[in-house]
């Protein structure tokens, strides 16, 4: 499959990349690892006149951990996330999630920035970022701004990012406590039929904080405040978990596709949410 022709740009700093986006407007798009964008261009679902490759911009690389504050550069690959020992200590849910994305070759080049900026409801990182209450740092011609992951996704492939803005980094506070990312997929390497990210903190025998978010169960990732609220103050017994699962299911809107009918996805969602809560609690 041959994509439509394009001009290729490889700026070495952010200002040059922004200038190229400004110059070519609608015609231009950034490319990171290319493992969502290249397949779409090959299928001619995306036609782009000017590709602005971010690979040579050193500022977009690197993982910084300062106490509980974690900052991940947009061009950090899934493989680099998995290999980072300090990140695995500070926020092990990142590694657990990244290991469930695609396959080794895709993880070697696919970036966290591309994963969250893409806007595909099948991407795994957006729900995790909502679970962690992360914020996305965007830089555009008028300066920089931060947008909460919970406010970033508007519809499939539609996000709060303006066309001339570049995502430079992701920030969140390491959640502490227990965590789990549970994903149901048809085969290894596949996108989720249903997936859930859960973090839980425990104070004595009771849950003191909980966050639940879900992947591929609506046209955007879904953070369920009600599901977290159902757990807080409880001992996360079967009835409490049941209430949280019911609350989470009330917040999703799965549709039928080649991964199954909507009712099946609801069923799969119930299973992964329950497992994620139980596992996060057992680790809290």
């Amino acid at each position, binding site marked *: 499959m*041959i994509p439509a022709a394009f001009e290729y740009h490889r700026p070495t700093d952010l200002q040059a990349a922004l200038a190229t986006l400004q110059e070519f407007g609608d015609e231009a798009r950034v490319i990171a690892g*290319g493992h969502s964008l290249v*397949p779409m261009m*090959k299928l001619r679902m995306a036609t782009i006149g000017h590709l602005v490759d971010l690979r040579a911009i050193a500022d977009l690389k690197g993982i910084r951990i300062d106490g509980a504050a974690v900052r991940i550069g947009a061009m950090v690959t899934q493989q680099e996330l998995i290999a980072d020992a300090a990140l695995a200590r500070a926020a092990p849910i990142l590694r657990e999630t990244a290991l469930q994305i695609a*396959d080794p*070759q895709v993880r*070697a080049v696919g970036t966290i920035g591309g994963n969250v900026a893409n806007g595909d409801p099948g991407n795994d990182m957006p729900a995790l970022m909502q679970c962690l209450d992360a914020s996305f740092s965007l830089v555009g011609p008028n300066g920089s701004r931060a947008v909460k992951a919970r406010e970033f996704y508007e519809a499939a492939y539609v996000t709060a990012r303006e066309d001339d803005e570049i995502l430079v980094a992701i920030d969140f506070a390491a959640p502490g406590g227990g965590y789990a990312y549970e994903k149901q997929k048809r085969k290894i*390497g596949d996108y989720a039929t249903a997936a859930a990210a859960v973090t839980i903190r425990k104070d004595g025998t009771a849950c003191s904080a909980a966050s639940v978010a879900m992947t591929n169960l609506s046209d955007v990732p879904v953070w369920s405040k009600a599901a977290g609220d159902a757990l807080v103050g409880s001992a996360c017994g079967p009835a409490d978990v049941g209430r949280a699962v019911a609350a989470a299911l009330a917040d999703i809107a799965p549709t039928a596709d080649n991964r199954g009918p909507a009712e099946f996805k609801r069923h799969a969602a119930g299973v992964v949410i329950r497992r994620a809560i139980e596992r996060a609690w057992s680790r809290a």
Partner: protein
Amino acid sequence: MAKMQLRLTVNGEAAELLVEPRELLVYVLRERLGLTGPHVGCDTSHCGACTVDMDGRSVKSCTVFAAQADGADVTTIEGLGAPGGLSVLQQAFREHHGLQCGFCTPGMITRAHRFLQENPNPSEEEVRFGMAGNLCRCTGYQNIVKAIMAAAAELNAVREAAE
């Protein structure tokens, strides 16, 4: 659209050629440089038959534009061994019947080559996880896993003997 001068190191040798940025790396390797080891199995980023080593990482060369590879160091199966001088992995695939039709084999071995550098002492389960981006329609994988385990043992023995 403008063509660009693409510079690559392929199997240790410098290559320079005029390409359209949209040409895919697998196409450049196969059609321009005559390296037909990387195969096009699916053309949709799933099967791994097109796997090559690029700057020390396994990549699916059907999903990389030539332009993205500018300046890269690329190794294909042709760079890992040759008839009469098979690599340890190639030899192990032969001995353990790690191939039948052979279509997936260049991608399998190129990925296994990188995997054994990432993890020189893998368990069987780690081999399966590390090779999850490569599909085989013939072998049922069992003998591929066996071949990689055998190659790891042999490479480790050679390494120990050298130390």
